[in-house]
């Protein structure tokens, strides 16, 4: 929030110190720069998120995670799309689905801000922090199917098949084959393989004392860069691959425990956050919120408020029972209210704009999607700004405490209350042994 403000202050709208458009040269270049920047930040953040999760987290917690990634994500997508469809004038349902899918994934960067730090340590239980991080990490890459379902349908049946013959059948084939098979499945496999190989290599080199301390610490970051680059090269889902690779990399918890008390990763984290939000502040189309020919400002404001309220909260309350980390209503409200929209939404926004570029007929936008680009840009930016502002707003503390039922007191000051700082799951010591050291199955017979 602070760096977003700083970005606005330095931007051409105010002080004119930072002029993104001048640096980039053209609007297309600026879009590309923003897309790549957010990709880079997401990749690094997601590897770090995967690294920070405990050993075999995805395997232990697959049940609540699949609830959060399946029905909850779908409902978030549909709810946002319906709100956009209702509130933005002259909006087709397919176009609304595009906008909805852009803001569906919760953002790992902003989630990190919420669930980390002193305040969160005092107020949010450890396992709730972990499930929020895991959810925001995993659903970031999983926005692709939602987005491309709508985009392929627009491509093939948006103008009645005039420019792209094939119809809905081709669109579905492309969606299953390319999005699910090529993008999602391949990136999961690729991330797992690369993370695993990296772990084994680092083990091997560390045992022989080939690695110095600096390279050891920076290994996760360079792994993130490598995956972002190579996955981008093959056109797959680099964000998801980064998260999976981060998890596979610390599958045996070795690297995480080695770097637990080190401050390099939070430092890089902070640096990237400040940089990207300053950049966002500078490139955000502030004037277009006021002057655009697609949606008036008052509707945008209503939309922003409604999206913040209905995008996530009701659905999380509905599935509270399926997620053991949510012990009571307050925690469900907390998790439902703070599903931030941020870097990942901007990432998907520019992916959409890039895709729409490919639909151009003779250099001009296709007639049915002529206004889609501008609408998506304005609405997604606005929702993201709303969410960023809300995620950081000082009333967060007050509202959370109000949700706790004791205004002015954090949970930690009321040990007598039902909520616990340390969950029972944390007290159970999980053995941090690697797979190789596990006892053979034959040992069970003699117990």
């Amino acid at each position, binding site marked *: 929030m602070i760096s977003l403000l700083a970005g606005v202050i330095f931007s051409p709208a105010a002080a004119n110190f930072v002029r993104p458009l001048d640096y980039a040269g053209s609007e297309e270049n600026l879009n590309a720069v923003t897309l790549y920047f957010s990709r880079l930040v997401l990749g690094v953040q997601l590897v770090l998120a995967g690294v920070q999760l405990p050993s075999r987290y995805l395997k232990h917690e697959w049940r609540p995670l699949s609830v959060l990634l399946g029905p909850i994500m779908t409902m978030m997508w549909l709810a946002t799309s319906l709100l956009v469809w209702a509130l933005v004038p002259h909006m087709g349902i397919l176009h609304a689905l595009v906008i909805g899918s852009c803001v569906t994934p919760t953002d790992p960067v902003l989630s990190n801000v919420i669930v980390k730090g002193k305040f969160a340590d005092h107020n949010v239980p450890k396992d709730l922090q972990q499930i929020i991080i895991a959810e925001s990490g995993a659903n970031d890459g999983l926005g692709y199917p939602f987005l491309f379902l709508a985009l392929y349908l627009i491509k093939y049946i948006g103008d009645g098949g005039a420019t792209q013959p094939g119809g809905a059948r081709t669109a579905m084939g492309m969606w299953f084959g390319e999005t699910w098979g090529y993008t999602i499945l391949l990136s999961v496999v690729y991330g797992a393989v690369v993370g695993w190989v990296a772990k084994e290599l680092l083990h091997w080199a560390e045992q022989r004392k080939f690695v110095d301390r600096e390279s050891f610490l920076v*290994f996760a970051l360079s792994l993130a860069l490598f995956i972002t680059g190579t996955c981008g090269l093959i056109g797959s889902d680099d964000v998801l691959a980064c998260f999976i690779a981060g998890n596979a990399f610390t599958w045996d918890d070795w690297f995480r425990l080695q770097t637990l008390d080190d401050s390099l990763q939070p430092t890089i984290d902070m640096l990237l956050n400040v940089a990207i939000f300053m950049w966002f502040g500078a490139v955000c189309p502030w004037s277009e919120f006021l002057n655009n020919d697609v949606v008036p400002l008052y509707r945008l404001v209503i939309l922003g408020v409604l999206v913040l309220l209905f995008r996530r909260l009701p659905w999380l309350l509905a599935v509270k029972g399926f997620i053991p980390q949510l012990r009571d209503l307050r925690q469900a409200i907390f998790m439902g209210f703070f599903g931030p929209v941020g870097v990942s939404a901007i990432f998907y926004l520019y992916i959409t704009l890039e895709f729409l570029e490919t639909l151009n007929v003779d250099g001009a936008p296709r007639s049915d999607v002529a206004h889609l680009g501008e609408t998506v840009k304005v609405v997604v930016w606005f929702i993201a700004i709303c969410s960023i502002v809300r995620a950081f707003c000082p009333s967060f503390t007050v509202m959370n405490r109000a949700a706790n039922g004791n205004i002015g007191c954090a949970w930690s000051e009321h040990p007598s209350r039902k909520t616990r700082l340390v969950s029972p799951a944390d007290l159970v010591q999980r053995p941090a042994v690697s797979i190789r050291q596990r006892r053979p199955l034959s040992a069970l017979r003699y117990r």
Partner: protein
Amino acid sequence: MTSFPGRSRFLQAGVLCQPTTNRLCPWFNNTSFFPSGLPLPPRSPHEQGRLWGYLIAVPRQLRYRTYFPDSSPWSAPGIGAIGQLNLASAIMPTLAVNDFNIVVSVLGGWVSLFGLVSYLCKENFYLSEARMFVTTIDDLSSRPVLLTLPPS
């Protein structure tokens, strides 16, 4: 060639004759599906079994489809492309070879791989570089050949 009994349908007195109609799949000409030299599918349901269907006929049909993508033996000619997926357009990925991706992957890959052996390299190169310098001077100064060289 082969003594597969199915071939005897088309071979009468050693001459390849007009093929009969396939009863299971009437629009499908057996000879074009199995070019000469390949064994024919079993004639009767008794010869036909799961083994034949899944292990031999299905892979062969897939192979045939990749060679001749325009026609599919299991679909009538009039129906056209039902059951065929245009694999070329569906599987061909969208490679994005641009500067950013190349630079980032090269940078990340190099830092990772060099990081694995960084200590080794530093230890060997830096120490031995210094030592090499010292020994060279020592060797040179103590070597009689150097002393006996004529002044240039």
